[in-house]
């Protein structure tokens, strides 16, 4: 029993970009063939926040919501926490029911395919849906091929029983090829031995062997979205997969986003379906080595935010990567214990405000006496806010103006806007104010600027990443 319908795909890449020319200027060379530019996560982005961005877009495209999700699989080679079920945080942020089956998968760039495979096998979902979130932001040592190629991006696939799209066939192959691309325990930098012929053999053998197992012919493809650690390797597999270079190029994302790791092949499929592709091969490969092929048919509704908006210099890039920045200074920051943070998760993840049962005013956070009538009713009617609003007061925190726990963020990303946002109530008639950072923007943020809230890292304390909301200038939402 499976679910093989593809109801929608959402895709996201950070707005920050760096051109290959910046690397060439810094290093005298650029080691990632076939990449013109790549996406760079901001200081408050990681695989979880990018995954949320893709998932929200996929749910919108599917005309579904988090409450419909019966099975959520999260796949990344760059989990922000090495141990912890990050699917739990994603479920909380996306409002997925607590009886949904969850999987957090990692280990190789093949993990996105494993997540889709497992989710399909978790069906049928009846009225519900499966949600596969594949999000990745690999990194390597600054002078390595991996780092030169390393991009960032995320994809979410809504799997259901009926489509409109469908996975019509799938096949895998696993064969031991140690040492092609790896990361040792405790390290956050991916590396490889660079044994060119061996690496290619692993890639071609696993993908080609999987292709031989497909039952349906793959000769009528509009695009072949092939794993792209750089812009050259996927084209080495034309023979093994039986597809031509043009078909692979039709699903290219590596040239503009860089190596998106586990999300690579799926991002390619997202762009192909966004271009009205009818039949797409998804060819995912991971070092170790293993490969899975999916033959998917459209139409599949797609919502993407893949365009870049800001070009970084190489020095700015190093700051965003944390290579030349300072950590949180000694002396610590405002202490918010993990249990007290956990009690506010409905507000931080889902904007749950409260309506005072005495006077009807909206309260955020909904605790204590009513902020408006000051009655201590001890009870608020839970109200989920839509997350839109306008700036009511704002400042730009310059160097030296931030508390110590935001020094690292400021060191990476520079000055930031901090605002009070009047958030719209559920039916627009009332507002309730919240403080929020405003995401870096090319426009000036002033009072009355419309914003939408999104999920980002707020800060890390005691080693625990705290996710919450930040505001984004509405006109800048991609």
């Amino acid at each position: 029993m499976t679910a093989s319908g593809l109801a929608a795909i959402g895709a996201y890449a950070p707005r920050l970009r760096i051109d290959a020319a910046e690397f060439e200027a810094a290093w005298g060379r650029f080691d990632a063939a076939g990449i013109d530019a790549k996406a760079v996560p901001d200081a408050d982005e990681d695989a979880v926040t990018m995954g949320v961005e893709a998932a929200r877009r996929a749910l919108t495209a599917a005309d579904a919501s988090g409450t419909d999700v019966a099975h959520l699989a999260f796949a990344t080679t760059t989990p922000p926490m090495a141990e912890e079920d990050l699917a739990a945080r994603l479920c909380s942020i996306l409002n997925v029911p607590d009886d949904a089956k969850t999987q957090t998968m990692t280990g190789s760039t093949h993990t996105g395919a494993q997540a889709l495979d497992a989710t399909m096998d978790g069906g049928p979902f009846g009225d519900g849906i499966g949600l596969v979130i594949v999000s990745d932001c690999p990194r390597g040592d600054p002078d390595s091929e991996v780092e030169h190629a390393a991009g960032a991006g995320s994809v979410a696939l809504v799997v259901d029983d009926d489509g409109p799209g469908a996975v019509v066939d799938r096949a895998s192959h696993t064969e031991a090829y140690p040492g092609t691309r790896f990361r040792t325990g405790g390290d956050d930098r991916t590396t490889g031995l660079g044994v060119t012929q061996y690496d290619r053999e692993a890639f071609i053998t696993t993908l080609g062997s999987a292709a031989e197992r497909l039952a349906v012919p793959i000769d009528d493809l509009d695009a072949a979205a092939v794993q792209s650690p750089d812009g050259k390797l996927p084209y080495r597999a034309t023979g093994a997969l039986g597809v031509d270079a043009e078909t692979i190029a039709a699903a290219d994302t590596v040239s503009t986003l860089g190596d998106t790791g586990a999300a690579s092949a799926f991002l390619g499929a997202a762009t192909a379906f966004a271009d009205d592709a009818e039949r797409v091969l998804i060819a995912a490969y991971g070092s170790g080595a293993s490969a899975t092929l999916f033959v998917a048919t459209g139409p599949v509704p797609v919502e993407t935010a893949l365009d870049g908006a800001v070009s970084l210099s190489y020095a700015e890039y190093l700051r965003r990567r944390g290579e030349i920045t300072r950590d949180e200074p000694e002396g610590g920051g405002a202490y918010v214990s993990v249990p007290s943070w956990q009690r506010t998760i409905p507000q931080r993840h889902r904007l749950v405000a409260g309506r005072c049962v005495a006077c009807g005013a909206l309260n955020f956070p909904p605790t204590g006496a009513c902020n408006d009538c000051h009655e201590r009713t001890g009870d608020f009617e839970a109200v989920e806010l839509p997350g839109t609003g306008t700036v009511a007061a704002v400042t730009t925190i310059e160097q030296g103006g931030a508390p110590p726990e935001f020094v690292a963020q400021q060191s990476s990303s520079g000055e930031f806007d901090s605002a009070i946002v009047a958030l719209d109530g559920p039916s627009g008639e009332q507002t309730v104010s919240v403080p929020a950072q405003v995401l870096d923007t090319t426009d000036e943020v002033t009072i009355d600027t419309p914003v939408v809230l999104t999920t980002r890292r707020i800060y890390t304390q005691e080693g625990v990443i705290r996710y919450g909301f930040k505001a984004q200038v509405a006109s800048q939402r991609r």
Partner: protein
Amino acid sequence: MRDAYIIGAGQTPFGSMPEESYRSLFDHAVSEAVDSVDHGIDTDAIDEAVVGSLGVGGRQLGLSGPAATEHAGLHGIPSVRVENACAASGYAVRQAVQAVKSGMADVALAGGVEVMTDMSSDVTKYWLGVSGETEWERLTGTTFSGVYAQMASAYLREYEASEEHLSMVAVKNHRNGAKNPKAHLGFECSLEDAASAPVVADPLNLYHCCPTSDGAAVALVASADVVEQYTDDPIRVAGVGAASDRVGLFQRDSYTAVSASEAAATTAYDRAGVVPDDLDFAEVHDCFTIAELLAYEDLGFCDRGEAPQLLEQGTTEADGAMPVNLSGGLKSKGHPIGATGAGQIVEAFKQLTGRAADRQLAAPKYGLTHNVGGSGGSAVVHILEREAAR
């Protein structure tokens, strides 16, 4: 209830004093306050003490009241630390007045102390934000400069006010502070200096922000029953008002008014039986220059939105109809958090008793002090009255 009087008040210089500890600073302030009592006072006559301090740097965070008073030789008496952020010692004075008025003490000491300049800038920044709303407001990356800057953004949007008005407050207070030998930043600055300083939190620049200072200040409060033993020129605590509000700006009713200040002032005027026009001067809480503009309106010196005109007209200059911050204010005199409120009482006492030297007003009768905690989570207002005709 019987009346309470300020019979003496004194303070250390405000500034950076690496040679001093919080205890030695407090001790110096006690000595100056004791020495300022007309007929003298034996410290054994002090029945109890209230010490304001935020505790910046940690230091003696617990039992810092007794730690300070025992060091100053005030042995054995009840002593307690009060914490209300930057309004700590304003509230300490209020507590001492309460003790005296209630009859529990005939003489009570109210003081405050803070040491803020012996730490790295990172550690200082940690402490500067601890009185902001911690779980939400601070986690948007703000300390107080950011929160007051948000208030400034709203004020500049709502009223006919500009960044130049923010700078004008700095120029005025530095001009006053240059005449105060106890001032931390006792130098004059030009409007150009004040307008061109590096931005801290837009629209606030460095000159729109007060410094962080070391210092201590002490006031001695005596009852009507004993005041004649100590002075022939009694300074009566004519009115006290205090109020609280939500700690986080985002939960307040207004971003362009400090409601707690307004409520505290209303109570103080009512108790004192005076109106703003009766005042001869005021020491207001100008931690950021926007705060002084808000104070003009919160304290009823002018209507909402008219603070910039009051400033332009020179009303609040030293030679104006309502001189504000003759001491230099927090901006120039300095802001050792826990000592600030008591320090304002010191200036008012000096003005009313004719001891303010170069910045002395001619025969003032009523002076107001205004001390704010955080960005307006608490406020306390005192109105002092010189009873004798001059």
